[in-house]
C-alpha cells in the first residue's frame, strides 16, 4: 500500500470461512475459523462475529485449540508463523516463527508443547512434496520467538488437512495419500503402510480422501473417492489387519469424524447430507439432508454437544448433537464467477450478486455479513457433479428498490437454451421480494444486458433487456388485459432492433428520458417515451464495450469504451464526439450520487483506476496498480453518513464508496484516512465494550463500578486505602478457598486503618499518585472482565497486585495472568503490612 497517499485500497471482508476446518471452543460458546488473513471468532448462539484475530500476513491455514489451555488457540499461516491467541479477549500472545509456509496444524494430547505442522519440503523445487514436522514450541517470555527445533515425522503426506489424524491418546498417527495409508506409532517410531488397489471391479475409485481415528478404540476410519468409508482395525499387526466398508455416499467422502466419546461416526460429502453412523451398529444411520451445499469439513466440539460442517458455499452450519441445525454462519458466497453485475440494494444498502446456484445474495457491506439469499430459481438443487443447473445470469434493481428483475438460464449441450425472466416486487409486509411475473423465453438467445430506468419518480419504471438474438425489448408494468388478473404484471412494450446487429450494453439516462443501446460499434439513442430512434453515434473501429450516461452536471454526455482501447465521450446536445482518449478501459461506471465516473484500465497485468468528471479534462484521482489482474466488477455504494473530507484527491469518496471484485474474487474497497481514523476510534471503544459479557452480574456491578471509576478520576482524589485490591479480593473470593477467619481478621482490620506513613495526600509524591491511579483503572478494568469468567478472577487480581511495581508492562502482566493458576498469593500482600 502507498503510505503517503490519502486514499488506499483495503481488503473488505468476504473471505472464505470454509477454507479450513473450524474449531469449537471447550464450552461450545465460540467457533473459530480461518478467514483469509484473520481468524474469526463467532458466537455459536448468536452467529455474530465476536473477534477478528488479526496479525498474520498471509492466508491462515489452520486453527487449533491449545491442548494445555482451552482458552488459547494456535493458528498457523502460509506466512510461516504460528501464533498463539487469547480468543476470548482477542489478544495475540505469542508468535512462533517457523520460516516455511505451513499448510495445516495438529496437536496430540500426550505431546506437550509440541505441535505438528505440514510444510512444503524445501530443496525440492520441481515437485510439490509435503512433510509432517513436529515443532517444539520454546517456553520463553518473548513476544516473538524463532523456532529452532523442527523434526520431520513423516516425509510424504498430503497437503489436505483432513488426510492426517492422531489416534487414541496420541499413540499413533494416520496419514493417507493417494492409494496408501501410513500409520506411524510414536512408541516404536515405526510405521506400517496399507495399500489399496487402484480400481476394483465395479469401477469404484479407491483413492483415500480423508481419515479419522477413534478416540477410545484402535480404529481408523477413512473416506474414499467412490463414497465408501472403510473402518480399519487390528492394524498394529501388519499382516492381520481387517477393514469393514460402509457405503452410503454416492460420490467422494470429503470429511469423516468421530464424536469425542467415539459412539458415533459423522461423514459428509458432495450430497450435502450429514450422515451419523452408530459405531459398531453401522446399519443405524441418522441423516441431516439438504444442508445447502457440499460439505467440505466437519468438526465436533470437545464436549460432543455441537457439530459443525463447512460447506462449499462459504457457510458453516452448527448442528446440535441431536442432529438439528441450530445456527448458520454464512459468508459472502463466491461462485466461480459473478455473472450478475454488482448492485447495491437501495433499501438495505446491501451488495447484491449471485451466490449459491440459483440464488441472489444480499450481503451487508457494513457488517460483513450475508443478510439473506433470494431463491430465484425455486427448484430443488440436486447435488450431483456434472449436472447443468439454472444459473442467475442477470439481475437489475430499480431506483427505489421496489422491483427486481432476474434472468436465469440453463444451457444443455443437446437442447436449446432455457431462459426465464422474472420480476420481483418488494413486499413491505414480509420485507422480501415476491415473484410478480415470470416470462418464459423472453428472448431467443442469451440476454446480454438488463437495466431498469433509474429515474426516481413515482411512475412505474421500464426494464430493458438486450439479447444476442439481435433485439432489445422494453418491458413495462401493465394493468391486466383480462378481468380475471390479480394485479398488474409486466409485459413487453417495445421490441427494437438496429440493422440486425447484436445489441450489447444498454443504459438509461439519469432522468429516464433516453435509452442508449450499443449495437456493435454504433451507440443508438432512443426516446424512452415514444421508442423512437433519435440518433446514432459511432466511432469505428472497435465494438462498444461499455456505455453510460453522465450524471448531474454531466448529464449531456454519453460515455463509452470500445474494443479499440478508446474512451469516448459524446455530447448529446451537438451529437458529436466531445473528446476521446486512448485507454484500455475494462470497466466504466458512474457514481449515482455525483457526476464522477470511475474507469478501471488494464495495463501490463495490473489495473489502474481513474476517476474523472465527464466535463473536465483532468482526472480527479488516479491510482496505478490498484490490484494485480483485471477488475471484473465494481460498484459505487452510497455511504451511510457523508464524509467531509477537504482534500481534493479523496473528495470523490465523500458520498459513496467504490467496491470492486478482482479476478480472484476478493472484495476490495478504497478508504480515506479520515475514515480510517474514525474507524480506529470506534474500534477501541468496541473492544472494551465487547470484553464484558452482559451477564446479570455485569448489570449489577458494572453500572455500579463505572461511576466509581469516574469519581476516581474526578478532581477530589482520595487515595485508596493501602492494599485495597487485596481487600477487594478478600471480599470477592469464595469463602471455601479462604483461610480461617481468625487468621485473616487481624490483618483485615489492620488494613482498614490509615497507615502512619501515607496518612495525608500531600505527603505522597505526585508520580506515585498517578501510578496508583493507573493501577486503580487497570484493576478496575480487569475486575470488569473478570466477572464473566470466575476462574480467571484470582489470576487477574494477582496480576493487578503485581502491577504495583512499575517495571512490569501491560503485556507481561497479561502473560503472568495466563501462566499462574489459582493461588492465594494476594494473601501475602495482605499479611505484609
Amino acid at each position: 500500500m502507498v503510505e503517503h497517499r490519502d486514499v488506499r485500497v483495503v481488503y473488505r471482508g468476504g473471505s472464505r470461512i470454509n477454507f479450513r476446518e473450524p474449531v469449537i471452543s471447550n464450552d461450545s460458546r465460540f467457533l473459530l475459523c480461518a478467514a483469509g488473513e484473520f481468524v474469526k471468532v463467532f458466537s455459536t448462539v448468536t452467529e455474530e462475529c465476536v473477534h477478528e484475530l488479526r496479525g498474520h500476513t498471509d492466508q491462515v491455514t489452520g486453527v487449533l485449540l491449545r491442548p494445555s489451555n482451552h482458552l488459547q488457540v494456535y493458528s498457523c499461516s502460509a506466512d510461516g508463523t504460528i501464533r498463539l491467541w487469547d480468543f476470548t479477549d482477542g489478544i495475540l500472545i505469542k508468535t512462533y516463527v517457523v520460516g516455511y509456509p505451513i499448510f495445516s496444524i495438529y496437536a496430540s494430547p500426550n505431546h506437550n508443547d509440541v505441535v505438528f505442522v505440514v510444510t512444503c519440503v524445501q530443496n525440492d523445487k520441481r515437485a510439490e512434496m509435503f512433510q509432517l514436522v513436529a515443532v517444539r514450541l520454546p517456553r520463553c517470555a518473548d513476544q516473538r520467538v524463532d523456532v529452532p527445533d523442527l523434526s520431520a515425522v513423516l516425509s510424504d503426506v498430503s497437503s489436505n488437512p483432513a488426510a492426517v489424524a492422531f489416534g487414541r491418546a496420541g499413540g499413533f498417527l494416520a496419514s493417507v495419500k493417494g492409494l496408501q495409508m501410513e500409520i506411524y506409532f510414536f512408541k516404536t517410531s515405526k510405521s506400517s503402510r496399507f495399500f489399496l488397489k487402484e480400481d476394483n471391479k465395479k469401477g469404484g475409485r479407491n483413492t483415500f480422501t480423508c481419515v479419522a481415528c477413534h478416540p477410545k478404540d484402535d480404529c481408523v476410519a477413512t473416506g474414499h473417492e467412490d463414497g465408501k468409508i472403510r473402518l480399519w482395525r487390528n492394524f498394529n499387526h501388519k499382516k492381520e489387519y481387517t477393514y469393514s466398508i460402509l457405503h452410503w455416499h454416492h460420490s467422494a467422502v470429503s470429511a469423516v469424524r468421530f464424536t469425542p466419546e467415539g459412539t458415533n461416526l459423522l461423514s459428509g460429502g458432495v450430497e450435502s447430507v450429514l450422515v451419523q453412523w452408530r459405531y459398531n451398529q453401522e446399519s443405524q444411520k441418522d441423516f441431516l439432508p439438504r444442508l445447502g451445499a457440499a460439505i467440505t469439513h466437519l468438526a465436533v466440539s470437545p464436549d460432543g454437544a455441537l457439530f459443525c460442517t463447512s460447506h462449499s458455499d462459504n457457510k458453516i452450519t452448527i448442528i446440535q448433537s441431536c442432529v438439528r441445525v441450530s445456527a448458520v454462519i454464512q459468508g459472502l458466497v463466491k461462485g466461480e464467477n459473478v455473472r450478475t453485475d454488482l448492485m447495491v440494494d437501495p433499501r438495505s444498502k446491501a451488495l447484491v450478486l449471485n451466490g449459491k446456484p440459483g440464488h441472489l445474495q444480499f450481503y451487508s457491506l457494513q457488517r460483513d455479513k450475508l443478510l439473506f439469499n433470494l431463491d430465484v430459481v425455486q427448484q430443488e438443487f440436486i447435488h450431483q457433479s456434472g449436472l447443468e443447473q439454472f444459473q442467475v445470469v442477470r439481475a437489475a434493481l430499480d431506483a427505489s428498490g421496489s422491483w427486481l428483475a432476474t434472468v436465469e438460464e440453463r444451457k444443455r449441450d443437446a437442447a436449446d437454451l432455457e431462459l426465464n425472466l422474472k420480476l420481483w416486487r418488494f413486499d413491505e409486509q414480509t420485507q422480501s421480494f415476491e415473484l410478480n411475473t415470470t416470462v418464459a423465453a423472453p428472448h431467443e438467445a442469451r440476454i446480454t444486458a438488463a437495466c431498469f430506468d433509474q429515474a426516481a419518480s413515482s411512475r412505474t419504471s421500464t426494464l430493458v433487456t438486450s439479447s444476442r438474438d439481435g433485439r432489445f425489448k422494453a418491458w413495462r408494468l401493465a394493468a391486466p388485459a383480462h378481468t380475471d388478473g390479480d394485479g398488474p404484471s409486466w409485459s413487453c412494450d417495445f421490441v427494437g432492433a438496429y440493422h440486425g446487429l447484436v445489441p450489447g450494453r444498454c443504459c438509461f439516462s439519469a432522468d429516464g428520458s433516453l435509452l442508449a443501446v450499443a449495437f456493435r460499434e454504433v451507440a443508438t439513442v432512443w426516446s424512452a417515451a415514444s421508442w423512437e430512434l433519435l440518433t446514432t453515434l459511432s466511432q469505428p473501429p472497435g465494438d462498444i464495450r461499455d456505455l453510460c450516461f453522465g450524471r448531474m452536471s454531466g448529464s449531456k454526455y454519453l460515455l463509452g469504451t470500445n474494443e479499440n482501447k478508446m474512451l469516448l465521450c459524446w455530447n448529446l446536445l451537438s451529437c458529436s464526439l466531445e473528446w476521446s482518449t486512448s485507454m484500455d478501459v475494462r470497466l466504466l461506471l458512474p457514481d449515482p450520487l455525483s457526476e464522477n465516473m470511475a474507469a478501471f484500465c488494464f495495463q501490463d497485468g495490473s489495473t489502474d483506476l481513474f476517476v474523472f468528471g465527464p466535463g473536465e479534462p483532468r482526472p480527479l484521482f488516479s491510482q496505478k496498480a490498484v490490484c494485480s489482474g483485471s477488475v471484473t466488477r465494481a460498484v459505487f455504494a452510497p455511504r451511510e453518513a457523508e464524509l467531509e473530507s477537504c482534500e481534493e484527491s479523496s473528495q470523490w469518496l465523500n458520498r459513496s464508496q467504490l467496491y470492486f471484485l478482482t479476478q480472484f474474487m476478493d472484495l476490495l474497497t478504497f478508504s480515506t484516512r479520515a475514515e480510517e481514523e474514525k474507524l480506529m476510534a470506534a474500534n477501541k471503544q468496541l473492544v472494551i465494550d465487547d470484553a464484558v459479557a452482559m451477564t446479570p452480574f455485569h448489570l449489577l456491578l458494572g453500572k455500579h463500578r463505572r461511576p466509581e471509576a469516574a469519581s476516581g478520576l474526578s478532581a477530589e482524589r482520595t487515595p485508596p486505602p493501602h492494599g485495597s485490591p487485596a481487600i477487594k479480593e478478600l471480599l470477592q473470593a469464595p469463602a471455601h478457598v479462604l483461610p480461617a477467619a481468625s487468621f485473616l481478621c487481624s490483618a483485615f482490620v489492620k488494613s482498614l486503618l490509615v497507615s502512619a506513613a501515607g496518612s495525608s495526600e500531600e505527603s505522597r509524591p505526585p508520580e506515585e499518585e498517578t501510578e496508583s491511579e493507573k493501577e486503580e483503572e487497570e484493576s478496575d478494568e480487569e475486575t470488569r472482565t473478570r466477572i464473566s469468567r470466575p476462574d480467571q478472577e484470582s489470576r487477574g487480581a494477582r496480576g493487578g497486585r503485581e502491577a504495583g511495581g512499575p517495571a512490569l508492562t501491560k503485556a507481561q502482566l497479561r502473560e503472568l495472568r495466563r501462566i499462574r493458576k489459582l493461588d492465594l498469593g494476594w494473601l501475602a500482600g495482605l499479611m505484609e503490612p
Partner: protein
Amino acid sequence: MASFKPTKIPVYPKLGEKITEDTLYWKNYKVPVQIKEFGAVSNIDFSPVAPYNFAVTAFTRIHIYGSFSQEPVKTFTRFKDTAYCGRFRSDGQLLVAGCEDSVVRLFDVSGKVALRMFKGHTKAVHITDFTSDRYQILTGSDDYTCRLWDIPNAVELTSYQEHTDYIRCGVTSKLNRDLFFTGAYDHTLKVFDARTDKSVMSMDHGQPVESLLLYPSEGLLVSAGGRYVKVWDLLKGGQPLVSLKNHHKTITCLALSSNGQRLLSASLDRHVKVYSTTNYKVVHNFDYAAAILSLALAPKDESIVVGMSNSILSIKHRKNPEESKEVTGQQRRRPSYRVFVKGKNYIPKQDDYLVSKSVKQHLAKYDKQLKRFSVSKALDTALETSTRGRKPDIAVAVITELDRRGTLKNALAGRDEEQLSRLLNFLMGG
C-alpha cells in the same frame, strides 16, 4: 436445513379462453334445457312478435314452444313425410312449412289443419318463406326450382329454374317485397326480383350452400357452405367481402345476434362460433354434444336454441341480472370462514411467549417420491394424476424436472408394455 422445494407446475396461459366482454356476455346463460324430439331438428324459427314462441321442425312434426315452457304449446302433425323449414310470417299469425312429399302447407298458428296446400313442386321442398308484403310465399325445392305463390288464391305466380342442383336455402328481403335470395348445392347464390323473370345477380360460393343470412340493412349477404362462411357486398354487385374458415366440418346454420354486432355459425363439428361483424374474428365458441343442424337466437339474445342431429333440442336462457346477483351473494355467505381462522388472527400481547410450531409441509405424492429419488415411481404417479385429473401440466412438469435432474432415462428404463402404452397414450394426447 432447507425444506424440499416442490416441483413447480408452470401455469400456461389458456389461449382463446381470455375473459373478454364477449365471453362474459355469451357465458351469461343458464344451464341448457334439453328436449328430445322425434328426429333430427332441421329448422328453428322464432316468432317475430311477443311472446316470441319458436317453431321447431323435426321429422314429421312442427312443435311450437313458448319462451319458458319445456312442453310444446302447439304441435302440427299433418305431414305425410318429413317436414322442412317451418317459418312464421312477420305478424306471427301464419306458419309455412315444406315437406318431403313436395306439398307446401300453410297453417294458422292457432289452428290445427292446414289453411292452404300449395302443390306444384315435384320433389321435396326444403325452403319456404313469406315475402315482406305477407301475401306471397317463396319456396325452393329439390326439383331445382324456386317459386312464388299467392296466399289468398293458393296459386303459383312465378317459377324460376335457374339453379342446377337442390335448392337448400333462401331468404326474402324484409325491405322489398319483390326481392329474394336462394342458395343451392350447385355452389351458387342467386338474387331474384319477382318483377323480372330472371335472376338479377349470381354469386359463386365454391361449396354447396347450406344457409343464407341477410343483414338487417340488407347491404350484406352471408352464405355458409362447406367449411366456409362468406360475406357478400350486394351493393357492389355481389363482391365477396370476407371468407371465414373456422369450422372443420360443414357449416349448417347462420344467425345474427339481436344488435347485429355478432354473427353466429353452427356446424356439424358440434361448435357454434361467434364472430364480431366488425373484424370477423372469432370472439366466442360454444361446444355442443352432437352435430348441429339448426340454430336460432331469440330477440335480444334472450335464449339460444340449437337443434342437433341426435334429435336433441337445447335451449339456453339468459340469466336474469337479479338471479346472477343472488348467486354471488350466496357464494359470499357460504363458508363460515371465521371457523377456519379462529385463533389464527390472535395478536400476541407484549409479554406473551411465542412457541413457534413448525408447519408441516404437505407434498404431493410425486414430490415425495422425487424427494426420495425414486424417479420411476414419481413419473408413474404424475402420469396417473394427470390422466385422472385431466391436468397434463403436472406430468409435463415432472418430466421436465426429471430431465433437469438428468434422470429421465432412468425413469423411463425397464418398463413393460402396459406402462409404456400408458406413457405413449399420454404423449399422444389420448
